[in-house]
């Protein structure tokens, strides 16, 4: 692909019409019975790295071939990402040098190096790691109870 071709790309990976496959990118994505977050969740979950086939698109939602035997929906936020090192806007001034830029650094090893050079932040990083080790956001059943008790998310 040419540099100009790269420049014209929208910096989103995995955007896909119905019939295509997507790869789950994020933790804690919710698989729902209907194309909305507030409602009944499917029993089966999905995990980062899992490849899924889409059979229908509806707004930001996609009905999955599986899991759920075609009866479960996943929101596009489960698979959308941005491609590092692509340029958007003002493409006439772009160059392959620019493209190289954003693909570098800002990695786990970069974070580790920063941590090693800033030992005064060790406790703060440790606290964040504790939060990250906990379940991402509220699990579907717990959230359903929370919404019902507070009349949220369309709960009567």
């Amino acid at each position: 692909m040419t540099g100009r071709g790269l420049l014209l790309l929208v910096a989103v990976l995995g955007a896909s019409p119905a019939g295509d496959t997507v790869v789950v990118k994020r933790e804690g994505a919710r698989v729902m019975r209907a194309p909305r977050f507030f409602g009944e969740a499917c029993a089966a979950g999905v995990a980062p790295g899992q490849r899924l086939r889409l059979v229908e698109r509806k707004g930001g939602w996609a009905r999955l071939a599986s899991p759920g035997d075609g009866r479960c929906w996943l929101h596009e936020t489960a698979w959308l990402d941005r491609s590092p090192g692509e340029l958007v806007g003002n493409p006439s001034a772009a160059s392959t040098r620019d493209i190289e830029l954003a693909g570098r650094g800002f990695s786990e090893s970069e974070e580790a190096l920063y941590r090693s050079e800033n030992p005064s932040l060790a406790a703060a990083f440790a606290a964040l790691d504790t939060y990250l080790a906990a379940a991402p956001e509220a699990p579907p059943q717990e959230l359903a109870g929370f919404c019902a008790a507070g009349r949220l998310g369309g709960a009567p």
Partner: protein
Amino acid sequence: MTRRTLAGVAAGLAALAGCAQLKAVPGLGAVADDMQRRGTESAVKVGENVVTAAATGDLGKKATFSMEQEFHLGKTVAANVVARLGGRTVPPGDPLPRYLRDVGTVLALAAAEQRGAGDRPYPMRGYRFVVVDTPQVNAVGTPGGFVVVTTGLLRTVRSEDELAGVLAHEIAHVQRGHVMAPVESAREQEHMTSALLAGTDPIVHAFFGKVVTVGTDFVLDKGYGKANELEADAFAARILAGAGYDAQGLGRALGRLQGRSAEGGFFSRHPPAAERVASLSGVARSGVPGAEPSRTARFEAKVRELGKGRPSS
């Protein structure tokens, strides 16, 4: 070999091996040092450009960062935020952080359902709502989905709907990319790129550190600029309505805190509360479901837990 030739060789070698290895080549150590010095200066310049881009709203050419890159940057900014707030975090399994997680999850999902074409993708590790035990009234959203909330703020707001208003505002900043956009669109990018051409990890590292410093200053002290703050307010009202909260929750929280900007924190880095309340009044009027007594009751029960908690450090 002339100095010019040496420099050319140095640039080529550095692109493959980096300055550290370059220094080991006899006769090239001084050139490598010079490149590294200039590169560090470039990284600092780029950090300044981030500030300029944010202040001027210049969203011209920009280089994208993946959500994984955003996560590591945002986590590092969040660690700095936690430390500057005193570092006394409340363990995530305690009742109050779990309650915040539930409120925040409802809002994050409502925000995702209203995702715009220019928004950042959902944080790759999901949102994390971190409680810091300090009297300072503050709430901060960083890239990567970290939302840091102080117990001072929890003691100040008076209902779940007001708390939700503040959380929705921070989620709006994250989703709209109010930190990442200026990072991606730092002006004079060629300056940064030419530094990176040398391919040296120290230069990339210097840039990372500068962006972390600038990002922390943004979210804690400087704010995102008036336009972004008002945009986050307006989006927060829509998030609240979508979730089923009182769309005027943020306005009520702001009204409660008018005149307290001198205390610093959340309210000092934003436009004046009166201006924000006025701006919100039109947005929040549509589709207001009204505050729910059961929500206020559980909020009051959780806030009563404050003081019984056990900060982790």
